[in-house]
């Protein structure tokens, strides 16, 4: 049968091809024209999608909105998985925290401080562009608690921030950053003033930090905050209403007074009046202390601001948080970086390439020179969000999302990368994706309606 079947299929294929040739004229040119039309419409889509992710894609309606692309929404409900599920949660147990404390929000980052864990996250309304007039504005999602299961939502006295994606502990308290949500006054020109929050009592109460009082323009989002010794730095996206600076660097050495590098910084005239020169106009997605240095990762969108669709990964390293040098990043073309995390042996950075659209990891001992680490997925379509990495001992959990062409939805996807660089798909429902101080949170955004707090068995 097999030979007969093969012969039949060969004939069918050949006859169909001949019929195709007979019936079509200009079919090839039409295909090319369709590509051109689609690319014209979606010309900045690839760069925009990366920019949206890189800049904290949940900002809509901000000054970035004009070049953000429709990043595929993540499927809201989990689907059965055929990947490995065993062993991932060994050593963890449920802390028994009431899921209602987290509601439908998702934890995105956490930090351990003074025996407590402070977590920040995104409310399900993240990305909502305009608040309903008169609607209650939710407080920014911040929680604090302990490994014994005592958790509460923090008190926040600040403009609403729907999505926080970073919290760091500094000598001047805790700082949390993210993307803003609507305020009560939707017509206010300060509508999208970005959130940088500070807590000086271990995360129980928070207040907003106004970076640039009295100056023209405003901060629309704060993609990253980092700390190096006594210096705290924050990267913001800032607009004056007519122009946008995607990576403005701010710094403080007392937690109260913030200085914007570049414009106004007369001690560093080489930077001129263009704060974007600090990072050459690139988007910064994350900051991380690595050894004695501070590392920044992100992407260069190409001149002007991604119009060519070229998005290249970039990494910088700084010894003082003020002067930044390019790190050696050999495999950067078309591959933006979205996250960086410290590891016992240095640092890992995660990103995803525009083509083939697949995730990858870079490894560095000190942040100054990077090398591709392991072989990520080689087929399918997957990208990584802003929070992509979670070191778990000598392994690393990589969180992303994938498109298989069968749906407009992206499917949450997770891999566990072992020390030899091998990527193992893991069930997204059973891996804690955010861990600090022996406390883990799962599932990841889009994979379930509630957050469960996990505690390491030894605690």
């Amino acid at each position, binding site marked *: 049968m097999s030979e007969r079947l093969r012969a039949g299929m*060969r004939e069918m294929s050949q006859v169909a091809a001949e019929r195709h040739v007979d019936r079509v004229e200009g079919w090839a040119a039409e295909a090319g024209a369709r590509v051109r039309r689609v690319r014209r419409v979606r010309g900045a889509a690839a760069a925009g999608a990366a920019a949206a992710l890189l800049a904290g894609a949940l900002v809509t309606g901000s000054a970035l909105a004009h070049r953000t692309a429709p990043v595929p929404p993540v499927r809201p409900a989990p689907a059965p998985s055929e990947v490995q599920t065993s062993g991932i949660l060994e050593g963890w147990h449920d802390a028994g925290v009431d899921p209602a404390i987290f509601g439908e929000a998702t934890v995105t980052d956490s930090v351990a401080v003074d025996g407590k864990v402070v977590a920040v996250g995104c409310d399900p309304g993240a990305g909502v562009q305009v608040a309903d007039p008169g609607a209650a504005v939710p407080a920014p999602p911040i929680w604090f608690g302990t490994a014994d299961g005592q958790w509460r939502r923090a008190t926040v006295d600040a403009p609403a921030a729907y999505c926080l994606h970073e919290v760091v502990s500094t000598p001047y308290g805790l700082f949390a950053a993210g993307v803003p949500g609507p305020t009560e006054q939707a017509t206010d020109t300060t509508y999208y003033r970005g959130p940088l929050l500070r807590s000086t009592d271990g995360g129980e109460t928070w207040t907003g930090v106004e970076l640039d009082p009295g100056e023209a323009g405003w901060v629309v989002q704060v993609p990253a905050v980092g700390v190096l010794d006594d210096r705290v730095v924050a990267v913001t996206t800032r607009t004056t209403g007519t122009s946008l600076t995607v990576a403005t660097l701010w710094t403080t050495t007392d937690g109260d007074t913030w200085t914007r590098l570049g414009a106004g910084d007369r001690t560093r005239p080489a930077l001129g009046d263009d704060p974007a020169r600090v990072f050459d106009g690139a988007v910064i997605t994350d900051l991380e202390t690595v050894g004695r240095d501070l590392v920044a990762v992100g992407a260069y969108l190409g001149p002007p601001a991604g119009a060519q669709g070229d998005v290249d990964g970039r990494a910088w390293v700084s010894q003082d948080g003020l002067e930044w040098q390019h790190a050696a990043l050999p495999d950067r073309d078309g591959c933006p970086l979205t996250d960086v995390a410290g590891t016992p042996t240095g640092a890992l950075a995660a990103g995803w390439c525009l083509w083939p659209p697949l995730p990858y990891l870079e490894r560095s001992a000190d942040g100054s020179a990077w090398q591709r680490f392991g072989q990520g997925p080689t087929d399918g379509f997957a990208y990584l969000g802003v929070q992509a990495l979670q070191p778990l001992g000598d392994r690393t959990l990589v969180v992303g999302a994938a498109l298989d062409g069968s749906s407009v939805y992206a499917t949450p996807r997770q891999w566990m990368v072992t020390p030899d660089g091998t990527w193992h798909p893991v069930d997204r429902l059973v891996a804690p994706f955010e861990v600090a101080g022996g406390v883990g949170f799962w599932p990841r955004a889009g994979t379930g309606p509630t957050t469960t707090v996990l505690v390491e068995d030894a605690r």
Partner: protein
Amino acid sequence: MSRQDAVETLARERGPALVGYAYLLTGDLATAQDVVQDALVHTFVRMRAGHDAQHAEAYVRQAILNGVRDGYRRRRTFLGARARLAGAVGPNQDTVAVEHVDVQRALAALSPRERACVVLRHFEDLPVREVAEALQLSEGAVKRYLSDARSRLGELLADEPEETWPVRPAGPAARRS
């Protein structure tokens, strides 16, 4: 070579073969043409200029598979109804007349996944593992589809399957036996 030139070249030089391949998967010439052109657009819109152009056909073939799978998912009801009507309405301008009409009819009797597995395994000569990867199925699922398809084809082509795959028994009773 610009992206547009590249897609036109590929469509011109390899388009008929790709349509033939898609026809095996879909059983309908017009659908096959649509699927291939969508796959070309899907691939070249996302492809960076000069990047991996030499491998474009492989990406297009995968996009064809994705498109067929997606299309079948959406149009399964329609296709099922049309298949039942096919004998009544007779040949139309899209009919691909072949000598191996028995093979054509036998393939038409398979489910979309069975058909895709058979095409990839016996036309593309892919090993089961690669068939599973291409269709994003487990190897066990592919073996089951192939086994079922061969049984069906064996009946329709009045022949016995030459190749069998061990399929994990299902259910407690089977496991006990």
